[in-house]
């Protein structure tokens, strides 16, 4: 960790050997022992983040365990957001605890894209209320148990959900410089090539 400032620097070096932190495998074991079969796939660890996936129905129970378990103590909700992968919806929570140097990412995976529903976590973190309202406003994800689930940014008579992948920007916006290099690449394509379909995540 502590490196001499006089050591020559090679810019653009990979993170893997030098600065990256040791992966917290103890946390992985603890999560596997505590959550057991409620985990929806293996525990993934990269950089400084440990990632678990749970079924949407299990969110409330899993979050309560993570919050209350004396060995986990994830008392601080760092973020809550919705994600549209193009095929399914997800709700992603980031948690912080003093028991581990890692962020914990909890992904409520595979929400139905036509009717995304997930239990609210406002019974643990009242402050998640606005986060859930924002996810509802932008993605249409319904958080069951949130007392105040209405639009927060868009006007009340608005009907669509802007951050969904099938919400495309109007033509003038996609021709703007914001499209950047991608737009230049498209311009070079032969005229009869099919138009680009809406993106969907390879990341999953």
């Amino acid at each position, binding site marked *: 960790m502590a490196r001499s400032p006089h050591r020559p620097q090679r*810019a653009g070096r990979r993170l*893997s050997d030098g600065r990256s932190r040791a992966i917290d495998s103890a946390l992985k074991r603890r999560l596997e022992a505590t959550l057991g079969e409620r985990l929806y796939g293996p525990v993934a660890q990269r950089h400084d983040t440990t990632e678990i996936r749970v079924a949407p129905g299990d969110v409330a129970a899993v979050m309560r365990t993570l919050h209350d378990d004396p060995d986990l103590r994830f008392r601080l909700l760092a973020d809550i957001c919705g994600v549209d992968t193009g095929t399914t919806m997800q709700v992603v929570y980031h948690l912080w605890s003093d028991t581990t140097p890692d962020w914990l990412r909890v992904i409520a995976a595979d929400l139905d894209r036509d009717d995304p529903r997930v239990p609210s976590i406002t019974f643990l973190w009242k402050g998640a209320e606005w986060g859930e309202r924002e996810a509802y406003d932008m993605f249409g994800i319904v958080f069951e148990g949130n007392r105040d689930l209405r639009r927060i940014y868009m006007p009340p008579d608005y009907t669509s959900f802007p951050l969904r992948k099938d919400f495309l920007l109007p033509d003038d916006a996609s021709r703007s410089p914001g499209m950047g*290099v991608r737009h230049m690449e498209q311009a070079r394509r032969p005229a009869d090539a099919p138009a680009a379909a809406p993106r969907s995540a390879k990341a999953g």
Partner: protein
Amino acid sequence: MSTTPQARVRSLDDPELYVETPATIFDAIPPYPPRTEREAEFYSVREGEMLINLGPQHPSTHGVLRVVLKIDGERVVDLDPVLGYLHRGVEKICENSDWHMVVSHCDPLEYIASMFSELVPVMAAEKLLDVEVPRRAEYIRVLACELNRISSHALFMGWLALDLGGLTPILYGFIERDEIVEMLAALTGQKLLFNYMRIGGVNGDLNHEFMSRLGDWMGHAAQRIEDSQTLINENEIFVKRTRGLGVIDRETALRMCLSGPPLRATGIPYDVRRAHPYGVYPELEFEIPTREEGDSYARYQLHLDEIKQSIHIIDQVLHKLPDGPVMAKLPRLLRPRPGRAFAAIESPRGQYAVYAMSDGTDQPFRLRIHDPSYFNLQSVGLLTPGHLIADTMAIMASLDPIMGGVDK
């Protein structure tokens, strides 16, 4: 030319009274049936209560926040913040621009301290790309951020006093801010939206004008802060109007997802620079000041303590600053491998985070921006009821929201 028949709607002054002016969504009582339990509860007005709009153009709302207050005489019974007047859809814009452009789109979010709002997406992109930033660039980032933190905190103290009716402190706050802003303008070429951070480093190396301005300022910075403290620290009116106001305890602060000074004012030493270190902060010595009271006055004092710590950090950075390049060598077109990354930093207002997803193209697949002002502002609904209307401003100012970040 036909006129549309106008519906009879409830008067804003007296809900029992029906008038013929058409109601719009800007009226205190919305012209549509309540959508949620909470909305129904809030907009049913009892005997003696009434609803008034605070904002969206009220100067004490720090931008364009509208708060519907339900008041009984001079006392606030309940309130309902209405957001979205400044919503630009930055997250959607970022999904449609390439990784380098994301920096300048995120820049104006927290416009009082924009070094921070451009640093986070850059850090998230670096994590996705697995790039190591040269050490000199890391130190310069810390230097620029801490300077910006001081300028933001100096303005905070002025604002707080201004919302309580004192005009003088903000003038002193701007003196401090002006010197730092001039300094950063020498470094970055901009005074407000710096656009200085780059994926893989910073835009330019330190120059002579910046260093000489910084040297001048460091000589009297600590003394200047002491001086401006004495202006309001023991001012009886200021203390009476902030002490014991908007008290929040530890458990509630965690439950409300507070971060930054409002959280540390309750005694929880959560600072991302120590709780989850990034950059070169592990190599720097500084304390995390906390207070136990959790009221507006504690939040004010905490800002003063943090300025002192920031000056201490800048001093160390200037002694430790290594030589070397300030940019990693990266291709112009960035295509991170598919993956997810979460980066968080401690901005003057709390934990500023970005959750980025890449699908292997040159544009982010999803870029979630977590702004601390948004989550801190939320607790104004918890802190204000029971206080006077005038105290609403004092509580709101002590939470220090920036509407550019709240509305994204």
